């Protein structure tokens, strides 16, 4: 089965072609450089670029896959979560294509797409497994019991983990994006110097909270009114708090559900201290840890096509009136 994947939920315009679950092409046009100067993704600009780029990316994906239009058997497209204006470009294009080629189309949840990316990277991976999804927009613990059975065990109630990194970097006068900056500063800092709060650490659920942590850091810096602020120590102590919160809940989820495989996904998973601690805990408790390389964690259409391939095989077609859902959850 030849499946076309389309992803335009945020700042990457991407189209991919999969043949029976194997990538034939996966073209990504990133808008990162365009949005950089704004310090974030500007929805209107993102939508404009998707509209301009999509037909070009689409043509390239077809030609790289070396297939003809009418060979396609189905279309998979992200319908949420994401920026409404950006989502609509991909979704409407997919609808037009589905009508024009008279082939079925399916809407894919972007988060589920990220999970299905793992099946591309690790062809032997099979459910069940636990996913810690940590990025600029998401901080979630997911339980993947089966291909279709994915459950959100917990998520952040306020700021995302990546957002906490960015904001603390701002407080400490470090650059953007904050994650790598904090990581660098922490290298020479004392991680035990300050004991920042670990909100919800021992709560009974798997939820996170990072906005109180951010405020604590702010108050800590204020204590050094006339002295110079110990940036490295604060960075290291803050990073330690985040890592502890993230991993404690993740391993608790794995233990309680009896699942032995844990996948760390999203931009924050690039953090070396997080990886180090995760591997240490996995060795100690005998878990299997998978940390996909960053390029498979960023947004791409191959993962959408992969998730779509699954739905299409099961004939779970969507109606042409499917709507974009910016706040789509699992």
């Amino acid at each position: 089965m030849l499946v076309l994947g389309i992803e335009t939920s945020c700042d990457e315009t991407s189209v991919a072609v999969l043949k029976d679950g194997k990538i034939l092409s996966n073209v990504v046009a990133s808008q990162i450089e365009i949005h950089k100067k704004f310090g974030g993704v500007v929805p209107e600009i993102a939508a404009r670029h998707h509209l301009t780029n999509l037909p070009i990316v689409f043509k390239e994906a077809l030609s790289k896959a070396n297939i003809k239009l009418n060979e396609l058997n189905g279309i998979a497209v992200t319908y949420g979560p994401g920026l409404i204006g950006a989502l609509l470009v991909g979704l409407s294009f997919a609808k037009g294509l589905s009508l024009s080629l008279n082939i079925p189309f399916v809407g894919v949840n972007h988060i589920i797409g990220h999970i299905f990316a793992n099946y591309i990277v690790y062809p032997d991976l099979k459910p069940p497994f636990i996913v810690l999804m940590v990025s600029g927009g998401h901080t979630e613990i997911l339980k993947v019991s089966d291909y279709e059975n994915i459950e959100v065990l917990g998520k952040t109630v306020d700021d995302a983990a990546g957002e906490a990194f960015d904001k603390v970097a701002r407080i400490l006068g470090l650059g953007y994006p904050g994650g790598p900056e904090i990581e660098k500063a922490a290298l020479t800092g004392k991680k035990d110097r300050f004991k920042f709060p670990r909100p919800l650490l021992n709560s009974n659920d798997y939820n996170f909270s990072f906005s109180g942590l951010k405020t604590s850091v702010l108050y800590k810096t204020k204590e050094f009114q006339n002295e110079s602020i110990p940036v490295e120590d604060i960075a290291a102590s803050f990073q330690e708090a985040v890592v502890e919160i993230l991993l404690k809940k993740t391993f608790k989820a794995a233990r309680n559900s009896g699942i032995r495989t844990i996948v760390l996904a999203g931009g924050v998973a690039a953090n070396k201290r997080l990886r180090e601690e995760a591997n240490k805990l996995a060795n100690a408790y005998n878990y299997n840890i998978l940390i996909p390389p960053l390029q498979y964690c960023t947004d791409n259409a191959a993962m959408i096509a992969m998730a779509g391939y699954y739905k299409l095989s099961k004939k779970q077609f969507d109606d042409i009136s499917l709507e974009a859902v910016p706040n789509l959850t699992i």
Partner: protein
Amino acid sequence: MKEIIFDLGEMTKKAMETFAFEFAKNVDEHNLILLIGEIGAGKTTFVKAFCKGFGVDPEIVSSPTFTLVNVYETLSKSIYHVDVYRLTNVEDLFYLLEDQIEDNDSILIVEWADLFPEFFQGDRIEIYLEHSSDHLRNVSIKVVGESERILSFLRRWRNAKKIKI
């Protein structure tokens, strides 16, 4: 243009959430709300409770870190929630707000609005949040432009507080 400032004094998080919730129900004549205050001052916390006042599930309200603009649909209109901290010039801001610009009947609520004072003019409400202690924020409100309803709400709120203290 008429400007009236209300100092509502210190509020706990809970008190501020109650205030924001009630405030939302009396804001109908205004569609430009500016939030001014440091990191962690409680701007997003305010927006969450404000949106709840419009029937929006506060779960979906989050800081527009990555997306700069979040849009929440209410039964009557859309709320555009913007964080302008990272923007470097006004042109960028125009880009950011183009979607909102054409949606005449929407509410625009802006974190870090003080960074672009020249942009956010005209009828508006400015909300100042200041750290006073770990668990308290000082809240003051500036109403610019005619709008009896919100003024009388704020008067009632201030008086109620006074009596309590």
